[in-house]
């Protein structure tokens, strides 16, 4: 039982002694803030469960049908890329994971903590192993606060965290070079003013900041990989392709909102297993390209790995679909088509083994699932650390 008015923090922190160090330093910061009069309120939730991405609130939302550029064939149609030959140049695989939780509140301001991790694995003679890339931390732990909400309590904690030795990282890229796995980030960095009473909006911002932190880790890994001599091997990245790397593809599992409408949408939902759509440039990427950011251009197409009904109950007609992104090949016409077909056959060859038991297996390839499996234990749960922090708070 804790004395009334004293924070009882619901807390789940990364494993290991280093996680304990982070917990210890945070505890110090909380105590300092508490001494200056900040009042914490117990309770929180796992932000990962809330699927903030499913609530459109910015321009990067998938699903806008206008501005789609169907450059391989107009309209986009179904195409048979040929039989998977049991061969693939996909030798490297990259993915990241995150665990983001609200651990308490200061008034209406959520105090959010995230742990993000990313890595590359390499497949050699069918065996997949972690592939270390120097200079990129394997894991980052961050406390996320909305500095520009200008809430005195939150800002007092903001100061206290820095005073406790956790560096403030303003841009995501700086997190890589911060030299510390434990950082403080501002979820309102790009916004001059945010309403501190907008609790829901502040949680969403914190989640987005956590996601962009993870994405920056993945991007940096991809950049450094592209600078290495990896011969003619390719890398598959989970999600959109963040950089225009030539020998790389992005594999997007979640096609919740489709780019197509009308007949194209029907064609996509009826796409047979083993087939692909012809390629296009997704709307928002086409828009950015058109504003001069050519590095944003990507060729994209869908592949149906498995029939829609192959998955478990509750899946819909998008189950088994994966959207592929790559740089637009230098070739054109038939050469381009052959290139897309070849990449498609590589992806289709990854259907065995199944990425089970992950429920997203119909749209996922095994090596990406492997990366997630080796990363997840590093970011999840540390009951002892949480209990320790609870005891510390109880003693305040």
């Amino acid at each position, binding site marked *: 039982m804790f004395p009334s008015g004293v924070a009882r923090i619901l807390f789940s922190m990364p494993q290991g002694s280093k996680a304990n160090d982070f917990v210890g330093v945070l505890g110090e910061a909380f105590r300092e803030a508490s001494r200056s009069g900040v009042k914490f309120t117990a309770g929180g939730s796992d932000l990962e469960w809330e699927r903030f991405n499913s609530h459109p609130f910015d321009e990067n939302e998938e699903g806008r049908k206008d501005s789609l550029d169907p450059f391989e064939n107009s309209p986009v149609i179904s195409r048979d890329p040929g039989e998977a030959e049991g061969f693939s140049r996909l030798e490297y695989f990259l993915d990241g994971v995150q665990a983001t939780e609200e651990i308490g509140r200061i008034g209406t301001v959520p105090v959010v903590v995230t742990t993000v991790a990313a890595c590359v694995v390499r*497949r050699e003679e069918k065996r997949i192993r972690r592939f270390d890339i120097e200079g990129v931390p394997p894991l980052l732990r961050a406390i996320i606060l909305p500095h520009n909400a200008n809430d005195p309590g939150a800002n007092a904690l903001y100061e206290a965290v820095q005073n406790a030795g956790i560096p403030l990282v303003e841009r995501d890229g700086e997190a890589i070079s911060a030299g510390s796995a434990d950082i403080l980030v501002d979820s309102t960095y790009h916004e001059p003013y945010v309403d501190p009473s907008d609790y829901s909006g502040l949680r969403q911002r914190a989640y987005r900041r956590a996601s962009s932190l993870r994405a920056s880790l993945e991007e940096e890994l991809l950049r450094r990989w592209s600078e290495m001599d990896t011969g003619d091997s390719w890398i598959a990245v989970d999600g959109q392709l963040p950089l225009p790397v030539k020998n790389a593809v992005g594999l997007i599992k979640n096609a919740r909102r489709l780019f197509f409408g009308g007949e194209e949408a029907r064609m996509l939902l009826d796409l047979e297993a083993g087939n692909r759509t012809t390629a296009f440039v997704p709307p928002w990427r086409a828009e950015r390209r058109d504003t001069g950011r050519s590095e944003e251009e990507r060729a994209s197409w869908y592949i149906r790995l498995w029939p829609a009904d192959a998955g478990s109950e509750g899946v819909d007609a998008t189950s088994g679909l994966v959207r592929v992104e790559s740089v637009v090949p230098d070739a054109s016409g038939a050469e381009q088509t052959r290139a897309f077909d070849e990449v498609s056959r590589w992806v289709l060859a990854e*259907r065995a083994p199944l990425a089970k038991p992950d429920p997203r297996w119909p749209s996922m390839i095994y090596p990406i699932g492997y990366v997630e499996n080796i990363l997840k234990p590093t970011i999840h749960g540390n009951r002892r650390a949480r209990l320790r922090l609870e005891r510390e708070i109880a003693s305040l």
Partner: protein
Amino acid sequence: MSFIHDNFLDTGSGPVGRVVTSEEHPATAHEFYFWTSESEAAQRLDIGHIVAAEAEDATAVAVLDDPQRYSDLQSFLDDFYARDGDAALEALSDRVEILVFKARVLATKHRHEKKQSKRPVRSGPVFFATSEAIEFALGAEDFSGTKIPMLLHENGNEVDEGTPQRTPLYVDEEYLLGPEAGHLNITGMSGLSTKTSHALFTISSIFQKTENKKVAALMFNVKGADLLFLDKPIEAPEGDDELAKRYEGAGVRGLSPEEKGMYEALDLDVEAFEKLSIFAPLRYGMDEGERELNVSDVSARQLNTRRNARGEDHCVHPIVWQLGDVLPYAGYVFEQSDFDDKFRGFIEELRARRIDTQSAFQSLMLEIDDYFEAAEDEGKNIQNWNGHHVATIRKARNRFGGLPSKCAGLLAHGRVEYGDTPRVDEPFKDREMRVVDISQLSGVPQDLIVTSVISKVWDMAEKGELNVDKLIIFVDELNKYAPAGNKPSSLKDTLVDISARGRHLSLTLFGAQQFRSKVHDEVVGNAATSLYGRIGDEELTNSSYRSFSQTTREELLQLEKGRLLLRHAHYSVPVFGRFPRPPVLMGKQGTDIFGGKSVDAAVAVQSVMRNLMSKPPALAGIRTDISGVEEERVHDALDRINANHRNGNGSRNPYDSFKNAIKGASQKRNGNGSSGRGNADLGFLDNVRRMKDD
């Protein structure tokens, strides 16, 4: 990285895995689980290997059991669907699989010498255990007696390329031979489990390692010539080309380099039994029916044994009984339907009258006949003699008449005089290997000999007359001699007694059987050391094996020859190990090389002379000397030379005596016509001749 006991972990091979715990499979004081790494060393991990892992303040040493390979495949169908039913389709990625072993803790050592620990290990690296760790885990530190190597453990780590780390599996002499505990039991299928081979190996090990104690062994040869050439090394001695040829001709390949390496690792010499003595019964028909039989005159050719070649029979001695030796076992000899109270009473009468020989029995029968005849002549109708009905007496006469054939030569007609000839039931010598050859017998005579010898040995032990500190008795087919169940038998009772009390009386039973479950509980239960070779599946279902894990039972079903599971008082978990072939000739090898048909006359002469002289003549010289002489004459001369030496009348130069004999020196034959006996004192005459020359 530092460890609590660096000397227990083979860090050179690197960690071979990592301890894992879960709610379903926690680490306990007695077992833990670990997944294996993919290093070269880890790929050699297998059942029976020994590893080490740490708790907070202790190191646990454990033996591997129960390997299981896991993947995250939830259903076989998922693999089928992934390949669309095409078994030939190769996926680009291998599904992750881990190999998990259960490790059964042998012992745990605390970082502080004086503290004990049973704490389970924690999550951390697992290494192959070093020999030092294995010895500690098998209780070597707590041994009160000498360490006797019984098997060789081969671990998965390599000390040299291709050579596994070898550690002798020792047993404590005081728990094998007493007094703390005792006895050994070996179970396994016939022909596959090498029970006798291992018993020989263990006895050799004991003979070599036991210090400051006199030890001897008694074995029964029940099959062929298995135990008849235990004084012959498995490798042809150097410097004797002719013998080497015979070894080669018999297909005896000697020990392989690996086997020699095993002996070296066990710190044992490859040496045969120096003091072998073989006792075999007289062959049926060899007794000539005289009133007295001098055992010293019986040659090995007259015995029921396959070790009877001249020159190789110096260690072979007769077992001959007279009637008085058989009567105490009348219950074994006569049919149960005959052995009623009246018959038993008549036998007691015979014993009371000290009717010790068949001839004395026959004399008594004549006496009884005269008694009845006299009564009849007097007109008396007398049906009893000394309280025994005439029908009983007739039955006895009839049944006793069949005794010689029933005893298959064991029973002589007249009085048996042993003189100085060694007896099967005399006290033992230090390091003596005494073999009783009953392979040519079956049924009654075989059981008689076994029962009689063991009973007499037990008597000697009780009276402290063994003349050795420890006597090992090896009995095969224990399910025959000490069966489970209530059927009474004096031999079974004796064996149970030996099992229960033998260790206090310097007797140790090494028992072997195919079916442990069919042996008397006390006999197997009192054995502090047990060995298991390959066992049949029906036997393994028995409750005797319920303490073994399923994996261990399945290993026992297919155990290869030369590999055994050892259970000992000091071991908390049984351990697998191997042993090399015994360093002696066994079975047909012996007869092929040293049997009568394998050697020509010259070799026979040399063999005989080798036993009688310190420097026997060379083979070439012998061939010259016997050239043109009939083989039978050569054999006769050899038999008589041997007989003289046995009687204490041997000459100073037996070879000269032999040469004189074959050159036609006069030979006296005694009245019963047998060769090799009696008064032809070649040695004495030679000595007289020599004195004359002097």
